[in-house]
């Protein structure tokens, strides 16, 4: 989830007084076939009890159409209200279906002036070929499907071998060693494709400005802020994930520090990210 703040266009509009705790938008699939249906969920948490959020403005829908719109809200134990707007969309022709950023203009009581809170836009690839999903869920499903086929194949092979062995034993009843049924080799499941891990790998392989900025962008996304935000925004959203916080700070030094300090900051960034990605130390 991300909260990006920007000033609303008109200064004197009657905006509601709302403190937005979190705001984000995500799709349940990254890759769909033409005319497939997928969901996009907009998630907004406000720090007060409300039963409506009419101020939420949806973005534009390119190459997809809305076929369903469901809104619900939940009062959280701490008194905040979470609003979920689940849009069911139908993909259009092959290309990219884009749902531009949703936004909300409000006066934050803590700041006292109007702010615009925006989500990130969401893009879904629409392809004519059978989708080979890049998301973890669909990848797991694909591997599961292949694993089932493999099991069936091995079962059939074992059954055939057993039958052949049985026939041979009947034809030549000498004491032969029992057939060994080959075990399927253990295939480790690949790690879920993680944009942060990919950016980290790219930076580890070639430390240059391009890979560093890409990694910094992914760190910001991991913390929950959009491009164009600053380190303080990211740290405010990163919570208590210590390694992530260290990585964010070191990425800043590596990106904007003097040349002499960048190498050292890059080393510290790698160290912090290794700890973060391995899940050690900060209960990721």
């Amino acid at each position, binding site marked *: 989830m991300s909260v990006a*703040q*920007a*000033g*609303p*266009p008109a*200064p*004197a509009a009657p905006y509601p007084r709302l403190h937005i705790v979190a705001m984000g938008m995500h799709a349940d699939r990254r890759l769909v076939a033409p005319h497939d249906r997928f969901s996009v969920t907009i998630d907004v948490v406000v720090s007060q009890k409300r039963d409506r959020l009419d101020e939420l403005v949806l973005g534009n829908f390119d190459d997809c159409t809305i076929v369903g719109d469901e809104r619900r809200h939940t009062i959280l134990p701490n008194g905040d209200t979470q609003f979920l707007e689940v849009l069911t969309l139908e993909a259009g022709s092959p290309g990219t279906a884009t749902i531009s950023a949703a936004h909300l203009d409000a006066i934050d009581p803590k700041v006292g*002036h*109007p*702010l*615009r809170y925006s989500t990130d836009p969401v893009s879904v690839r629409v392809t004519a070929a059978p989708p080979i999903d890049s998301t973890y869920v669909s990848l797991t499903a694909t591997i599961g499907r292949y694993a089932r086929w493999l099991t069936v194949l091995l079962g059939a092979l074992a059954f055939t071998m057993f039958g052949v062995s049985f026939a041979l034993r009947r034809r030549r009843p000498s004491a032969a060693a029992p057939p060994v049924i080959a075990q399927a080799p253990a295939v480790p499941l690949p790690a879920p494709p993680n944009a942060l891990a990919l950016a980290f790998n790219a930076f580890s392989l070639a430390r240059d400005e391009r890979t560093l900025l890409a990694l910094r962008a992914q760190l910001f996304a991991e913390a929950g802020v959009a*491009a*164009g*935000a*600053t*380190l*303080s925004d990211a740290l405010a959203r990163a919570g208590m994930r210590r390694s992530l916080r260290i990585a964010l700070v070191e990425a*800043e*030094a590596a*990106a*904007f*520090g*003097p040349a002499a*300090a960048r190498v050292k900051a890059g080393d510290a960034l790698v160290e912090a990210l290794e700890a973060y990605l391995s899940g050690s130390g900060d209960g990721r």
Partner: protein
Amino acid sequence: MTHPREVVRALAQTIVGQTETVEALVLALVAGGHVLLEGAPGVAKTLSCRALAAAIGGSFKRIQFTPDLLPSDIVGTRIYDQRSGEFTTVRGPVFANIVLADEINRAPAKVQSALLEGMQEHRATIGPESLPFPEPFAVLATMNPFDGDGTYALPFAQLDRFLAKIVLGNPTRDEERTIVDRYAAHDATFVSAVATLDDVRHWQTEARAVFLDDRIRDYLIDIVRASRETPEVVHGASPRAALALAGLARARAYLEGRAFVTPDDVRSLAPAVLRHRLSFDYRVAATDGDPEAIVASIVARIPAP
């Protein structure tokens, strides 16, 4: 060698709350600039300035600006000495490390100009002599947002000389309680000098050496340029605003112990640098528009690198 953070801590012992103001004053001192303070009477504008001068062991002079003030009342004059038969120079209150120009908008333009010339050149001319001000030198000018009668608005060319404008708000209830407990029985006491004038000069030199990446330079330029391309703004900020923002961002990085400027430095200081440099369209006032919100929107619409 002390660190400017020591001055911030010392000021916090005298000033209750107003943390942003205290930090901004120290930042401006480190950046070598002047500050415009706007706030209602009684929100510790003068106290902050006195405390700052005390914390650095510098000389402090206060000039109460009034409609009948003369330039010589600020810069000084030459007086004929009958015994020696010669003219002697009497230096005015502007010859101090920290000069508080109280209610600067109550004096006419020629008096304001006398001070603002010194702010730019760090020296004043009295008769045939051009005399340098003591260094460090900073003017902290206050303006009261109320009581507009009998005031002379500062021209934009003069406002542009101020590095930043700080708006002081009212304290919170808890802070007000502390103020009453602390100062109802006795006057404010100032923490003795925690730094020297040499320290301040050293900070200013070091802050100027703080690294500013090209992308951050471009970011702050984009913000300044965006102020000229905003429909509600008639006159945007000048290139001097970009210089001021760069200087203050470097000072903030130095204050935080960093050798480089981050986008946060720029974003957090941009409103203070821009707010007094913009001239707003009459429709903003006519529709009760909030100039502060416009400044915030200008800063917010430029994505940080």
